[in-house]
């Protein structure tokens, strides 16, 4: 007898700490979709990953009835379109364009700046720190006084940003600043996200993320 996961035919190739993979996990959980989670060893990528994402060889990859979808925000939009319950993107075209813009902003800015923040030293580190605070403030500006980026309901931009809340502790420690102080509304939003089951089950403890970054630093000879 087929399991629920097998019936849905959904497989997610992922890596535990990846915020991009977590976006997919959150989206699938919001839609109540059962799926098979496959943890990849990024230093020894599986034949399945190499076959399903031959161009980039990266996670996450969503495999639906044997067909691969790559790029986390493309995957989240696919999930939103195939499973129409609890819509993540708004129905109004202008609001959709805004949501896509801010999700794309997160992709362009957050991870790259975060990496500079923990990797670099001296002047470059100082610049990364300034940039990160500016990025978080811009996000807070978009959030405003809303409960979520999506308004009353948890939406596309919330899914895009939520995994990075686990990285706040790392950014704060590396950058010597406090998200609570610099961006109180964003900090409050992060707490609200953690209370959602889809997020709490998908996103790891911030200290685990910090430990992971610590290991990366050693690997790059930065400690």
């Amino acid at each position: 007898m087929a399991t629920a996961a097998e019936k849905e035919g959904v497989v997610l190739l992922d890596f535990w700490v990846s915020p991009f993979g977590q976006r997919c996990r959150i989206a699938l959980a919001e839609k109540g979709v059962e799926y098979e989670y496959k943890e990849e060893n990024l230093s020894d990528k599986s034949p399945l990953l190499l076959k399903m994402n031959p161009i980039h060889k990266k996670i996450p990859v969503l495999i639906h009835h044997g067909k691969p979808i790559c790029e986390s925000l493309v995957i989240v939009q696919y999930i939103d379109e195939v499973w129409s319950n609890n819509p993540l993107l708004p129905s109004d075209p202008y609001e959709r364009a805004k949501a896509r813009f801010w999700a794309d902003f997160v992709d362009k800015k957050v991870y790259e700046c975060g990496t500079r923040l923990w990797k670099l030293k001296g002047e470059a580190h100082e610049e990364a720190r300034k940039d990160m605070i500016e990025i978080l403030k811009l996000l807070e500006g978009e959030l405003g006084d809303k409960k979520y980026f999506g308004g009353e309901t948890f939406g596309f931009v919330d899914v895009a940003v939520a995994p990075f809340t686990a990285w706040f502790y790392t950014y704060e420690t590396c950058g010597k600043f406090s998200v609570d102080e610099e961006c109180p509304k964003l900090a409050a939003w992060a707490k609200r996200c953690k209370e959602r089951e889809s997020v709490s089950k998908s996103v790891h403890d911030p200290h685990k993320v910090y430990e992971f970054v610590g290991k990366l630093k050693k690997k790059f000879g930065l400690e």
Partner: protein
Amino acid sequence: MAGDQELKLLGLWGSPFVMRARIALNLKGVGYEFLEEVLGTKSELLLKSNPVYKKIPVLIHNGKPICESMIIVQYIDEVWATAGPSILPSDPYDRAIARFWAVYIDDKLFPSLRKIVLANADDEETAEAADQVIAGLQLLEEAFEKFSKGKDFFGGESVGCIDIALGCYVGWIKAAEKMAGVKLLDKEKLPLLMGWAERFCSADAVKELMPEVDKLVELGKVLRARLNAAATK
């Protein structure tokens, strides 16, 4: 139509990203006011409409700004859904594939193309960048074979999302070839893409927007000079 809604596009001649928005508007038969920015300066309207990036294109629809070229294209496709052909496919999986390639084109192809245009003639990086562009185009040649199913465009019978995402670079690819003396669009290696490029450039929605390659080469030289000047400051 003109009285109904106010549609403005902030852009710059020669920008492939601006071209994407214009092609989409042409496909839908929608009239708009084109507001040309001046290279090297940014208008008040641009700074107000795109405070985050301060970049063109920006589509302003009834006073509300939409930024980022592929987001603008999807917006146009959704607002004028019943006008003209669909730009994005209707099937969710096909849409995901179209979006994947749009991301690939901008993340991988564009930076290498840009390097070739902006690099100085004796730059070693140019050869490496050219190889990357050719490798990318090779992947797109294979993708074209798969998606066109023997029809004229990536989108099938009409210009679609991937056509717009890639097609806007055709002029610049040809300009880069002239500027760096490299062959990027090789008829022998990329026969399908060559045929597609010709059809794309002559498509109704595109032909009046295709810039002359020699003018792009001139613009490329200006951009290169500005970059060098900024680097030496």
